[in-house]
């Protein structure tokens, strides 16, 4: 197996290593491979959690990388880390995909499928996820808020599905998701500002 472990710390804003996206934007063919090898496991894991065994998982990953290749030139380290950029683009494509497939109905989500045979990216994924301290991001949310947000953002359930699952009115689910996300946004902004101050 090839060791696809990315260098630690390369994904933080202001990290010294040149971001892969800059090389992608300049048309470096090796950068295309590096991008897939560095972020492929991450994007795939997210897509699998979101779409389960559906072919939409592979489609959304493909769409995400197409988007990354074409939008790499718009990446600016001053507006967030490369990892954040990749995650944002990947999520956008997943949401597009799910909307296109009209999965925001009361359908049963495709979760709980058989595991993928290949898990060789696990080590790289651990390094990648450790490179940004994500845990504090969710710290201020209550257990219920975390549960609702996880079902929505991470597992791709519709508001109707979440309401049914948790026995709550749809309006309450909607409001909690919106407010939790606003709180995360606020916390993220503060931590980014502190990060910039700290790097001065």
């Amino acid at each position, binding site marked *: 197996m090839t060791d696809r472990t990315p260098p630690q710390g390369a994904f933080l804003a202001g990290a010294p290593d040149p971001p892969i996206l800059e090389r992608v934007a300049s048309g470096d063919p090796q950068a295309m491979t590096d991008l897939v090898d560095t972020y492929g496991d991450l994007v795939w894991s997210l897509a699998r959690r979101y779409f389960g065994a559906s072919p939409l998982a592979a489609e959304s*990953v493909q769409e995400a990388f197409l988007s990354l290749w074409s939008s790499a030139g718009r990446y600016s380290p001053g507006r967030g880390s490369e990892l954040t950029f990749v995650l944002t683009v990947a999520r956008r494509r997943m949401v597009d995909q799910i909307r296109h497939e009209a999965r925001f109905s009361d359908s049963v989500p495709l979760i709980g499928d058989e595991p993928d045979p290949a898990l060789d990216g696990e080590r790289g994924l651990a390094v990648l996820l450790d490179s940004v301290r994500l845990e504090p991001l969710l710290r201020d949310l209550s257990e219920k808020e975390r549960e609702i947000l996880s079902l929505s953002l991470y597992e791709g359930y519709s508001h109707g599905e979440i309401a049914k699952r948790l026995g709550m009115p749809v309006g309450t689910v909607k409001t909690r998701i*919106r407010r939790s996300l606003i709180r995360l946004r606020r916390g*993220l902004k503060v931590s980014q500002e502190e990060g910039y101050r700290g790097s001065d």
Partner: protein
Amino acid sequence: MRELLAGEVAGERLEDAEWLELKELLASMPHAERRSEREGMEQAAALAQAAFLAEDRASWRGLPEDLRARLVTMGRARAADTAPRLRRPVARFGWGWAAAAAMMLVWLATAVWLQRPQPLVDSEAIEASADVVSLPWSSDIAGYEQVRGRVVWSDSLQAGEMRFSGLPPNKPGEAQYQLWIVDPDRYDNPVDGGVFNASPAGEFVVAVQAKLPVAEPVAFAVTLEQTGGVVVSKGPLLLVASEG
């Protein structure tokens, strides 16, 4: 505004009234602030998604080798094919005929579910808008070189209109003109700008019907399609109005 934006970013399908309200609120903000609000919310959602994954080790998966191989092949082919166009200054200002002629226009899939009523904005308001852009039509397609006119667009109003004279009339029952808007900062594919008919008499004006919010478009293009428009256009691009 943030509640609506949070809902949209979380994947919620906003009610028509909410969607219009969000669109108007965003349009009233300076471009940089609007971008920052949306970007910040999207980053929060994406990082939260990753944070949930970080806690859920059992869901970590390795990219299947066949998918990896496909992506690498696609990426390398893309690097060989399009390296010069990926560089931002070229992509932004060099959207010329060479690229335009080769371009396949794909109507954004999201437009299917995001089609909403457009607020009517009059010509004077668009022209008076501080961020109005005005681009002339040009063409090197036989039968269209004589077309005169321009497209004007305002990000803040999310409204625009096209003026034409000399545009060959279409047969409305068979074919209609379709506008495409190129907004590479936000969308990989051009945004559908609506279908319209050419008036046989003199100059005429058509409102732009952007199916998605557009910011700083770099080009507009017109094709002739089957009545009602198409999802995927093979062109040709009969008219183009671009910065480059």
